[in-house]
């Protein structure tokens, strides 16, 4: 970040920009909601990925402008985004494993659990 002595290191985001980001976020939320109501099965597996893509786009908007990533040091951005890498790693390897031994769980006879059902 360049350091100019007049403005200090603050980068106030323009009010209009923030407002338009908010409006975009609201519209995207409505879009997700609408898609989930309308499609119902037609989208199939894609529905999930579309919803996730929209959520990620919203997240990107929040991060870029609300969280000032747009003006922030690249190192900070790298630090934060690297966390998602580790989350993906965590999910990915664990899921790979469980999906491979899932069949051994499915074939195991489980007693229906009634012990904790309230009367």
């Amino acid at each position, binding site marked *: 970040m360049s*350091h100019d*002595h007049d*403005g*200090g*290191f*603050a*980068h*106030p*985001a323009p*009010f209009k920009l*923030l*407002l338009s*980001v*908010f409006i975009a*976020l*609201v519209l995207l*939320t409505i879009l*997700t*909601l609408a898609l*989930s*109501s309308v*499609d*119902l*099965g037609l989208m199939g597996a894609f*529905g*999930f990925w579309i*919803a*996730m893509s*929209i*959520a990620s786009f*919203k*997240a990107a908007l*929040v*991060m870029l*402008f*609300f*969280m*000032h990533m747009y003006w*922030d*040091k690249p*190192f*900070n951005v790298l*630090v*934060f985004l690297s*966390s*998602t890498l*580790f*989350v993906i790693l*965590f*999910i990915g390897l*664990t*899921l790979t494993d*469980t*999906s491979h031994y*899932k069949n051994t769980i499915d074939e195991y006879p*489980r007693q*229906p*659990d009634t012990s*904790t059902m*309230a009367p």
Partner: protein
Amino acid sequence: MAVVEPEHGAHDDHHDHGDFIAHHFDNAEQQFDSGKLGIWLFLVTEVLFFSGLFVAYTLYRVLHPEIFDQAHVFLDKYLGFLNTLVLLFSSLTMAVAVRYAQLGKNGHVVWYVLGTMVCASAFLGVKAIEYTHKWDQGILVRSAFDYHAGHHEAPAGTLAHTLGVSEYLIYLSVIPLLVIIGFAVYAGIAKLTDKPNASFFSVCMAIAVGGYFVGAMAGHFYMEVTDGGFGGRSEAAAEMMAYENETHSDHEPTNKPVDHHDESAVDQQTAESKVAPYQGPQPDEFDQDIGIFFSIYYCMTGLHAIHIIAGIAFLAWILWRSILGHWRSDYFGPVDYVGLYWHLVDLIWIYLFPLLYLID
């Protein structure tokens, strides 16, 4: 080369130290950069903290899609949507608060931080309605899951009965009520003892926590209007029923609304033939593991709610310092840091909303 010079005279060429620069920093910018990196790293730990729940969610959703299909109809997506809007708006006010802190306009910061806090409380209010409604119906974590369809009436004569709300809601609301009363009383005392800042702060806090009741009333009103809520559910289930009715036209079509406010539906269900059409949620149709969805739901939203509460505490600290007029263009770090934290809470919700409420 004059290497031996007193350390404390070494910074004369730097611009003035502000009041808030800690002794071990050379200048305001180093302090700000340190804080900023620190908060980003903290957010990294937060992301990884939540990651465990996302792993649990992903695994159970991939391995047991059926329990997610069965369970999500219990979540009202319009209430989720309302909460998303509230949280997005609070993010906006927070971002604006940061902007004014950067410009050194403390008065503006006060109002926008207050707005953020009201939204945060309102979010919790809506959440309280959602939770208590589920508790009434026995929609709990895996081991305690004991769904019983229908309206839960509070025993006659209780306050909950008079208000037409859940008993649990009354219990939950006691806490914010006490907080509000506490702040209101303290505001009066501070006023009398001539502490205008403290008085103003307490009034603001009372208003901020009051947002809880706004949210709760909005949620309750929605529940009343939709006759027990379940906006998402009735719609989805109705369409599914229509679909089932087409494919199984030889069977008695059941056009009964799916909210099953009476127990007769259960009997009807058992009387059905072997190949019964989908009827909406009935206790005996569930996979026995359906409660795991709600375990994950409660863990995720519960942990998120705890973060909201912590956020309110941080915001209160920012509010107080704004009232004292601490912020200026070279010292606004705390507002920025709390803002980043708040946006992260928003970010997590942005993912939770489709993951929990909008399962197809």
